[in-house]
């Protein structure tokens, strides 16, 4: 019995040393820590990251918390740092609490950068952005105004009240509305947490409280199905336009039924790809140019050296006409 265990141990230790040595020689490791695992959006980013890992010759680690809990996220980042992963990117849950791990990474010479959700003042190496927060906020308002006019009442349903990226988008929506469309009335954002049921409940109540409501914006991807379902159930399809940052697969049936007018999103798989690519650049010690050629990307990826932002490109708008062309 003990012999067997001993042998198994020796074999595994040897194979690990060999694997470790081989890895150290050839394959740098890039990790991505999402805000939450088990949701389609980050799953798509993982798929893109895996594709990049294969093509660029790196090892890709994808690991995230099961609740949107920043301490759990920090623990995951910290353990990646302890493992000595070459570069770690984080979709930050809370910008203000990431500072301890940034310091720890620096101390070990590990490149820590952000992706998908930023922590601008934390000292991260770079931010791989799907689009600027400003662009995301204003696009959705501009697109909505095209459909409901400038004189409309619009509700906002977000996920966790503590998600700093979602709050930033809401901030830019409000800014865009007050700067460009003074007649537009944005209601106070409501927070549904992570469940579709709560999102549906809150949206129904919003529609009841504001019979003249023209549109509802689902800010977190977790709230999209709830908002859409509430519009369908209330029989307000057509009179209230739903929209949000939802993947085409999640929003497809609602866009077709008319409950959703459109959806704004980028391709998360490409964002995952770009994240891994950026990680490899950082490990290799290569500088980002103002315009970067990334394998598999038709257009060059721009880099804002002043803010340290690598930009995927403008967000895409999915409508009934083009939604079937996308699968993520």
């Amino acid at each position, binding site marked *: 019995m003990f012999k067997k265990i001993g042998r198994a*141990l020796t074999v595994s230790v040897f194979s690990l040393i060999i694997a470790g040595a081989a890895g150290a020689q050839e394959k740098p490791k890039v990790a991505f820590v999402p805000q939450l695992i088990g949701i389609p959006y980050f799953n798509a980013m993982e798929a893109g990251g895996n594709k990049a890992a294969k093509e660029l010759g790196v090892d890709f680690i994808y*690991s995230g918390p*099961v609740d949107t809990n920043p301490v759990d996220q920090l623990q995951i980042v910290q*353990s990646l740092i*302890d*493992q000595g992963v070459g570069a770690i990117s984080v979709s930050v849950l809370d910008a203000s609490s990431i500072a301890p791990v940034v310091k720890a990474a620096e101390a070990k010479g590990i490149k820590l950068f952000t992706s998908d959700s930023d922590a601008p003042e934390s000292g991260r190496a770079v931010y791989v952005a799907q689009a600027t927060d400003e662009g995301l906020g204003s696009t959705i308002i501009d697109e909505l105004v095209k459909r409901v006019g400038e004189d409309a009442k619009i509700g906002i349903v977000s996920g966790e009240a*503590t998600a700093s990226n979602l709050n930033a988008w809401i901030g830019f929506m409000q800014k865009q509305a007050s700067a460009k469309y003074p007649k537009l009335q944005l209601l106070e954002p409501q927070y549904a947490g992570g469940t579709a049921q709560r999102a549906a409940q809150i949206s129904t109540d919003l529609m009841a409280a504001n019979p003249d409501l023209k549109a509802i914006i689902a800010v977190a991807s977790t709230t999209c199905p709830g908002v859409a379902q509430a519009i369908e159930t209330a029989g307000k399809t057509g009179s209230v336009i739903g929209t949000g940052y939802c993947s085409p697969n999640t929003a497809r049936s609602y866009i077709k039924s008319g409950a959703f007018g459109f959806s704004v999103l980028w391709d998360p798989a490409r964002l995952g790809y770009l994240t891994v690519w950026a990680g490899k650049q950082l490990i290799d010690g290569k500088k980002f140019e103002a315009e970067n050629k990334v394998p598999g990307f038709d257009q060059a990826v721009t880099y804002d050296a002043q803010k340290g932002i690598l930009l995927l490109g403008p967000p895409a708008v999915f409508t009934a006409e083009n939604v079937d062309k996308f699968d993520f």
Partner: protein
Amino acid sequence: MNRVRNLQGPALVLSLLSLLWIIVILGLLALKPSALSVGTITTILQFSTILALVSLGQGMVILAGGAGIDLSVGGTVSLSAVLGMLVLKAGLSPFFLPFVCIGTGTALGAFNGVLVMKLRILPLIATLGTFFVYSGVALSLTGGSAQSGVPDWLLWWGRGVLAGIPVPFLTIAVPAFALAGIVLAWTSWGRWVYAMGFNERSARLVGVPVDRARLILYSLSGTLAGAAALFSLAWLGSGRPNIGQNLELESLTAAMLGGIAIFGGRGGVGGVFAAVMLLVTLKTGLLQLNVNTVWQVGIVGALLIFVLLADRFSQSWR
């Protein structure tokens, strides 16, 4: 008789937990030798501080019996952290921040104690109510946004490491456990806690001030939650309105795993400490091996059931 039962259960659980802990460490060593470094130990201790403090309070409340339980610990941590920062923003000198956090925690805990002991609301329900209220108020007051502006000297304490051991762990978690252990084992207060947990009626008959003791224990649970809140501020550098999320269930898991009987009167703080270490080491180990995080919750759940079953069946064999 009383004494014998007090000793046997916890001793068994403690050895079981230590055995499991050694298995986790050996497993990690076998699968990934590089993972065991001073850095990893620092990480484990740093991340166990909040859970350790909160579980200690939870464990003592349960230990004192009377169906004692504190579901509001997570809410207490969040609200203490947020209130501390809000008061700071309102212009209070940062020097008072530690007192505000710990004071708020104590007050919130004492409120639980009043609900339970004075109004006779069952602990599960009273603290379920305050769980909703505390965590809800923490979110509503801030609108969900984190409150920054923690003074530098506090950060220096919260992020400091001494010989591989995080300073906050050394300066609050360890003393808190040592003190609780000593009080429970060697003072009349400690014996009262066991006595009232084991058999409330006889404890009352021999003159143990059950109500006062329990009120103090609920406040103490709040104090420890307040200390955890202070540590979270000093470590993260901001007050988060949901920092205590899930702590109620996690601390309950740790206390149960640590051999504290849900009916009270049985168990010890050593077991709770071992359970917290086991939980955090297990989590860290699984992360180091890059095991998908979805398995963590399931493994912890299975572990809880397993340890309780082992404890239960060892009793029926006796």
